[in-house]
């Protein structure tokens, strides 16, 4: 039978075959892991922030010198910014998803930290009235803050406003963590000692200013606290096509109100997200290039070796043709041979892929390699092998039977 013939012939080139198998196995293992890394990284890059990303622009204003009344200053600024044509709404905030200005604080479900309550570290978002609407957060249950619920953040005392704030809006993720069983709406949480803060609303998504790893990325909450630091970020919501003009106008307006202040980080939300992930994008590019290079090198090796073997076996092919093998038989012979080698490589490669994954997991906090990567990897390598061998195999099938009758 054909298979026995192939096996017998392969045992004549044990070392070469072995090296080819090793190469296929290494490629299989590395490419599986690389594709997995690319996939998990790009999932992370596509995380929904929860805000109306293509409608937001922002600008940070830093006061120079002692401003005794930051709240008054913010109100003046906001009124002027709201008057810009095309601005739908505007808010002064202290943090935004991806802006890395992360104020993480522990939230308890019980007033006494010694009691058995749940405690979850979460990122606080503080802003002026209208923050919810400006950011475009989607309220699942409850309501926005009422005007009389707002208190100053008291940043001069390290955010002491937290000990007075009456209301908070949490993300669904955080609500489920704090109150796993029941409805979080209306319940009290304790962000500061025994001072109760009521959950008045739940939004479906709001990413934290920093990424904190899968499972903790959406542990955020909004407080009805007014930023009163010397530096504040103004967020403006507008139609996508107006963004750049609005940003320019905002700069002019803010400079007009006080030319001494420092304006920085003026950009659209899309730019903010892009710059937050710029390293990841580079990394994905490098990984894709490396994976493609690996596949190309392996394909070339398979093709190169196959064509070398065809050249070497011209006479044997001629003999087989002379004693009745069809062109199809010869073609299938080389294809089956390749299939066998690649299969062997894949089997070893899969084991190796898991070893590599386990190693990476131990050292670099990577998740488990999902099982479905293996059949996909196998299919890719089988396809690659067959493609690479097709040319040499076709050339082999063209060898005329008459070759058998010629001497060396």
């Amino acid at each position, binding site marked *: 039978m054909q298979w026995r013939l192939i096996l017998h012939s392969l045992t004549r*080139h044990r*070392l*070469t075959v072995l*090296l*080819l198998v*090793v*190469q296929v196995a*290494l*490629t299989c293992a*590395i490419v599986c892991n*690389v594709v997995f*890394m690319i996939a998990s*990284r790009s999932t992370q890059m596509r995380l929904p922030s929860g805000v109306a990303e293509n409608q937001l622009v922002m600008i940070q204003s*830093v006061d*120079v*010198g002692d401003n005794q009344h930051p709240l008054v200053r913010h109100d003046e600024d906001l009124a002027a910014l709201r008057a810009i044509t095309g601005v739908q709404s505007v808010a002064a905030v202290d943090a935004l998803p991806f802006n890395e200005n992360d104020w993480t604080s522990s939230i308890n479900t019980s007033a006494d930290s010694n009691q058995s309550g749940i405690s979850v570290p979460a990122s606080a978002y503080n802003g002026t009235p209208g923050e919810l609407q400006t950011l475009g957060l989607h309220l699942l249950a409850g309501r926005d803050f009422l005007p009389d619920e707002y208190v100053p953040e008291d940043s*001069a*005392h*390290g955010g*002491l406003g937290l000990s007075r704030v009456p209301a908070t809006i949490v993300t669904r993720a955080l609500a489920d963590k704090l109150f796993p069983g029941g409805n979080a709406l209306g319940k009290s949480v304790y962000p500061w*000692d025994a001072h109760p803060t009521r959950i008045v609303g739940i939004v479906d998504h709001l990413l934290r200013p920093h990424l904190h790893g899968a499972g903790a990325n959406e542990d955020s909450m909004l407080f009805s606290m007014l930023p009163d630091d010397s530096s504040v970020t103004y967020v403006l919501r507008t139609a996508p096509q107006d963004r750049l003009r609005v940003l320019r106008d905002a700069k002019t307006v803010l400079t007009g109100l006080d*030319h*001494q202040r*420092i304006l*920085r980080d003026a950009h659209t939300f899309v730019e903010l997200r892009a710059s937050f992930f*710029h*390293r*990841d994008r*580079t*990394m994905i*590019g*490098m*990984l894709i290039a*490396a994976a493609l*290079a*690996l596949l190309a*090198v*392996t394909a*070339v*090796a398979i093709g*190169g*070796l196959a*064509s*070398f*073997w065809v*050249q*070497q076996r011209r006479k044997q092919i001629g003999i087989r043709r002379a004693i009745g093998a069809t062109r199809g038989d010869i073609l299938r012979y080389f294809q089956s041979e390749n299939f066998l080698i690649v299969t062997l490589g894949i089997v070893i490669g899969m084991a190796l892929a898991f070893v590599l994954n386990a190693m*990476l997991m131990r*050292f*670099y*906090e*990577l998740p488990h390699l999902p099982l479905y990567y293996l059949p996909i990897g196998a299919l890719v390598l089988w396809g690659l092998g067959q493609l690479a061998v097709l040319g040499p195999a076709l050339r082999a099938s063209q060898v005329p039977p008459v070759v058998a009758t010629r001497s*060396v």
Partner: protein
Amino acid sequence: MFSYYLELAIRSLKRSPGLTALMVLAIGFGVAASMTSWSVFRAVSGDPIPWKSAKLFVPQIDMWGPSGRNADGSPPSAMDYTDALALMRDHRARLQSAMYQISPSVVPADAGKHPLNVGGHAVYSEFFPMLDAPFMYGSGWSATDDANRAQVVVIANKLNQKLFGGVDSVGKSVNIEGKDYRVVGVLKDWNPQPRYYDVVNSGGFSTGTDEVFLPFQTAVQADIFNDGNVNCNAVQAESGFIGLQHSTCAWIAFMVELDDAAAVTTYREYLNGYAHDQQAAGRFSWAPNNRLLDVPSWLESQHVVPSDTKVSLLVAFGLLLVCLVNTVGLLLAKFLRRSGEIGVRRALGAPRAAIYAQFLTEAGIIGASGGVLGVLLTGVGVTSVGWVLPRDIAALARVDVSLLVLTLLVAVIATTLAGLYPTYRASRVQPAWQLKSN
């Protein structure tokens, strides 16, 4: 004789130009791809001060006790004000400095210009000699200036360009947060990456440069508040910057220079003694649990090297491995076929050594050409890194010459060894036997 082998080798390689090109390309490509990725890896993890990093240490003091320790039991990464000042007062290392990050506004003398928001650090005088900070004009301030809370400042070249047009500005005055400071030194462009002296605030890497350095006590007195991270395990009792100084919050980075093993031991003992004293005084209710790590271990413990670059190094190494296996496989396939030729040469009187020499020459040529190609492609790769990668990363990417040499050696040796095995096998067999077959 060598030229004869060379001729034979070239002839043999010419017989299958495709296969030869493939082998050479595989080596060249493998070397270049792995070296280019490695240079990027080095760009983000390279030792920032290789000539001195083993002498620079970061002390950590366990001022929060068991509840405030990291998962691995190590104390907080930064110090509180009390401990930082006590260590500075005791002055037990050859050089040492406490430091905190500042971001004051600088008002240019020219009324038409906007005020600038500049990043910097408040440090002690020994900071500059300890880190070998390169001065363009002037120098750092003195220990007396530290003690007297002198109104002096060291600025970076970048700020000097903005304020004084780049001229020697030593002796001139700069308005920082409303007060005048006398420039005593101008630093050359100095922006070590990772920013090892203050990892806690930069996460290791910072896109901005430190443009202004003020004496620690002067900055504290002038109420130039901390712009870096603050970690607390208890609520601050008092407000503002003063409250931070009186709190147990950790916000101060610390570095010491210890020149030999004896100095390290002495300093370790000193830290333990200090913690014991605090325990005796009732401030700590736990046994001393200090750390004293040198800069490389410190960077490692703070996870400064981003994990993805390590992964990419692994990928790069895999690429080299696959390319080498590839070449060795092709070379073996080619050489194992040539027993007939070996038989003829042996029958004509060639000794085994001659056969070895011939085949090693052939394999060596492939290895060497692959190596040369590898060096060329590495050059192209590292140059193009500048176009592909973001500027901040690309600016740090440099080829490691010693590693490149090592990789080349590995490639050439692997290829040559691949030539050795078939020759060994072929030359063991009786020549007559090989001549008969085929």
